[in-house]
């Protein structure tokens, strides 16, 4: 009798689980719990330290390769790192190889530069979307302007003050790639390793474990993973943003997954030995 009752749990309509998840995700947005983010992971700390020790005026190339599907995890990472770069008075160049990223880049740069009184063309520049990343990355190794001769507004890139002294990767202090695709592997293989350019990555939480080998060998100087990584970086630069505010929902959703797996397996054990 009990066995039959328990078996009903496995036939539970999936829409109840959907509803439970929706509640778990929405409740903290309406009423934040405000749990503190106590720990900073080693890889996020390394990313922060590397960026923090760059000399003012160094050129950092941001490759922002994500679209709205991974925006909640990756846009906070990008904003936190751009803020850090501006705090340190670094020069910022932005490229992308994902067409859907152009609007998100626009949204990020509408707001962040104003916070630090940064001027387009002098302190930062945004380049247009390019297809075929491997070919573009290879081309940039010899002559950056062979591919990016104009910025997103059609201005000659060579004439922009922010680009003074930049010809190829040798003149760049750091490449930051934030991506929801395999672009980080391409940056490491075609640029980081071959031209000895330091690379820092920002990826979704689900793909974070796959970059362990690059971190161990120093091919990546640091890595930010998912919304938690964004929240950690925000706490390091002391500017809470969307990463920090999203942590509550993340907390409860993760625990819900664990609770569901545990529940189903405990029920399975009871049925087996009953």
């Amino acid at each position: 009798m009990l066995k039959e009752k328990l078996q009903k749990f496995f036939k539970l309509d999936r829409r109840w689980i959907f509803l439970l998840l929706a509640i778990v995700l929405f409740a903290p947005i309406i009423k934040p719990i405000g749990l503190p983010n106590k720990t900073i992971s080693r890889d996020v700390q390394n990313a922060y330290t590397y960026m923090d020790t760059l000399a003012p005026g160094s050129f950092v190339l941001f490759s922002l390769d994500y679209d709205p599907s991974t925006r909640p995890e990756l846009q906070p990472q990008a904003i936190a790192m751009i803020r850090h770069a501006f705090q340190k008075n670094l020069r910022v160049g932005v490229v992308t190889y994902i067409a859907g990223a152009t609007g998100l880049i626009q949204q990020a740069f509408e707001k962040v530069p104003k916070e630090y009184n940064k001027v387009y063309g002098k302190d930062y520049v945004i380049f247009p979307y390019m297809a075929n990343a491997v070919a573009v990355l290879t081309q940039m190794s010899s002559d950056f302007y062979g591919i990016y001769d104009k910025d997103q507004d059609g201005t000659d890139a060579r004439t922009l003050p922010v680009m003074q002294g930049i010809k190829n990767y040798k003149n760049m202090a750091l490449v930051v790639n934030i991506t929801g695709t395999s672009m980080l592997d391409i940056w490491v293989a075609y640029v980081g390793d071959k031209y000895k350019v330091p690379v820092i990555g920002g990826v979704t939480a689900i793909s974070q474990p796959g970059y362990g080998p690059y971190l161990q060998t120093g091919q990546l100087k640091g890595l930010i993973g998912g919304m938690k990584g964004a929240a950690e970086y925000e706490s390091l630069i002391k500017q809470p943003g969307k990463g920090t505010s999203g942590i509550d929902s993340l907390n409860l959703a993760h625990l819900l997954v664990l609770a569901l797996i545990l529940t189903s397996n405990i029920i399975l054990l009871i049925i087996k030995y009953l």
Partner: protein
Amino acid sequence: MKLIKKQIPLAIVFVFGVLTLISYYIPHKKSVDFMEMMNKWENIVAAFAFFLGLISLFYSHYSKIARKVDGWGYSLFVYIGFLAMVVPAIYCHGKQMDAAGKTALGWSFSFIYNPLSATMFAILAFYIVSTAYRSFRIKSLQAFVLFVAAFILILGKVPLGQIIWTSVLGWTGAGVDQVIDWIMSYPAVAGKRGIMIGIAIGAVVTSFKIIFGIERQYMGKD
């Protein structure tokens, strides 16, 4: 005919495959210039491939609408979605912002593309949670090990999990961060490195097979 359809393409692949491979290892201006030229060609060919892909997509959905197959209404949205982004993009010369604020393209990106793309991905979360409940069964030792590793990783990734770990397992002296670091630095890296080496060797072998004309599937059936 055999010369045009087989031998010339194979010769082109061989010559340019070998030249590109050699250029990678020769730091000379000539090889750099050659690589630059190849990159430009590749971009031009990719643009044509993109255009062909678009025509193929439109044709495939047009035939679905014309034959009124099941779900043909969804095919209409391919055209609607395309026009909703492309027409504003042409009209605004690709600019999402101007002095007056958001352009029509900026509006389409923010209020059509952005929410649609985010919704598609967000739906996955619901299916993952539902599948975790219905399908993750610990029926073997391997499944148990996987579960323990996943349990610790999920717990350690969120502050609430870290608090739970400290209050339940704090007496062990091992922080959840240390345990996660160990899992990520040893078993996870070992597995991932093995996969990466395997993929790299496979890619090298396949490339050689294509260069030397052993692998010819890219040429089609004729």
